[in-house]
């Protein structure tokens, strides 16, 4: 399972400064949860899909489509049954509850899709330098980006260890959920041991290349905040304020009849 989502390409979305993309991502996340009505998250999801198209991020979205569909549909079903409205529809489900369920499903689909599009169009290096330019100390940004980079490595190590254990007779595919979870436990120790053992090698490699040898360092990647970045950031800031207003100060885009 390769979960490194970045897809190198020369598109307008790729060319945006990572700080502008972070502002846009924050705006989408806040707007998505600003209202209960499915209209807003539905429109946002449409916008995210358009951005994914412009950024050629379909491949990345395709890889997580099962996760998105599962979470969104499970969420829609759960909230449609558990939420309570006033207009009966079918059995225990009311119209308002269904709207709330669909809205929640769309919110989740939207936030996951937006995160995936961000990761598909922004390289680790860009995220690191973007975070540093936003004021995050270099070691913290380095740890964050290294962790992002190591996740697929450890997932790969886990898959290798799983195959090795299966070849020794470990059965992780039969039985119920709890049984299968229990059978995965013998994998935890070797995965952790492999990960921890790599620490000394990584530290040596870093220090031999002068890691933190000087307090002020330069970066191979130079970020430039262009006009398009300014526009995206300004629009994002306006949307963030709008999201906060919708969530905290009005009942617009709420669902009438949803029980409070």
């Amino acid at each position, binding site marked *: 399972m390769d*979960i490194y989502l970045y897809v190198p390409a020369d598109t307008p979305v790729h060319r945006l400064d990572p700080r502008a993309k972070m502002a846009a991502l924050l705006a989408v996340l806040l707007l998505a949860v600003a209202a209960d009505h499915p209209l807003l998250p539905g429109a946002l999801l449409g916008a995210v899909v358009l951005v994914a198209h412009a950024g050629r991020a379909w491949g990345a979205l395709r890889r997580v489509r099962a996760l998105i569909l599962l979470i969104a549909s499970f969420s829609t079903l759960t909230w449609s049954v558990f939420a309570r409205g006033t207009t009966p529809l079918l059995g225990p489900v009311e119209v308002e509850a269904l709207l709330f369920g669909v809205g*929640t499903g769309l919110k989740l689909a939207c936030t996951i899709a937006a995160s995936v599009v961000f990761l598909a169009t922004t390289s680790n290096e860009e995220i690191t330098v973007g975070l540093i330019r936003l004021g995050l100390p270099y070691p913290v940004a380095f740890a*964050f980006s290294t*962790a992002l980079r190591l996740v697929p490595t450890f997932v790969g190590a886990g898959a290798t260890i799983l195959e090795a254990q299966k070849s020794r007779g470990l059965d992780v595919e039969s039985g119920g959920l709890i049984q299968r979870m229990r059978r995965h436990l013998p994998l935890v120790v070797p995965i*952790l041991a492999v990960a921890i053992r790599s620490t000394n090698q990584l*530290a040596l490699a870093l220090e031999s290349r002068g890691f933190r040898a000087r307090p002020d360092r330069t970066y191979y990647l130079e970020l430039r905040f262009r006009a398009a970045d300014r526009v995206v950031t300004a629009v994002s800031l306006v949307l963030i304020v709008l999201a906060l207003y919708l969530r905290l100060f009005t009942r617009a885009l709420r669902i009438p009849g949803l029980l409070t």
Partner: protein
Amino acid sequence: MKELLTMWKHTRMIILVAVVAAVYAAVLIPFKAIPLIPGYTEIRVAQVIPPVASLLFGPAAAWGTAIGNLIGDLFGTFGPGSLFGFIGNFYLGLVPYALWGRLGPLSTGREPAMAGAAQVVEFAAVTLVSALATAGIIAWGLEVLRLLPFAALGTIIVLNDFIFPAVVSPVVLYLLYRRVKRWGLLWTQIMPREDISTGRGVLGTALLLVGSFGAVILGNWISISRGALAGAAGFQQFGNPQVVGQPGLVWTLVPFMVMLALALVFCRPRTDLAAS
């Protein structure tokens, strides 16, 4: 707890932050597909890792767990609540090492190598406090953001962060502790004494205990109209999604959140533990 800041001077500690974050995220992500409250939490087998990492890597585990949870969120539950997820998971990696050896009669005063039943009991105790602190912070945060009722999420987080780790993590720690010590990668082996806060930490321990137990008990009590069964009543409110952001609950828990924040200043991890 100055080691939370001074650790960033040490390359191995920085790498350990990344390693803990990556392993935590790598185990979290596949289980995003099995949600408990869609969009907010799921079955978290990965919760086995934070207490183990905390007792091995100290402050690196606190930062690593927080960052790992954030990365995991990017694959399924990223949203405004991720801020409180970051802070809550920070405590998940912080509390076990901060409290180890500080729990009076429950403490063995020895390294957490899981040598004997008494250490397993101490492990369960520090894991319970870490689960409560995490649940209190995240559930309070989502109540502030008016996203989910305290009683629904708080109970699930406590169960997720306590039951599975209390049973499984001692075995993992038993298998790893001596190895990691042999590799010279325990946080107390990497960081010099002058970079670690010293003292008895009585006030810090008290703040952590009162802050975590107080937040969850009082939060549940208020969230479910004072006194009904937490889990069941929490789930009843779960079906009433707009009963969130109760000002009474939000403001009542502020002192407990302040206590948990102050614990960061006053806790003192023990570095004089006897070898197991």
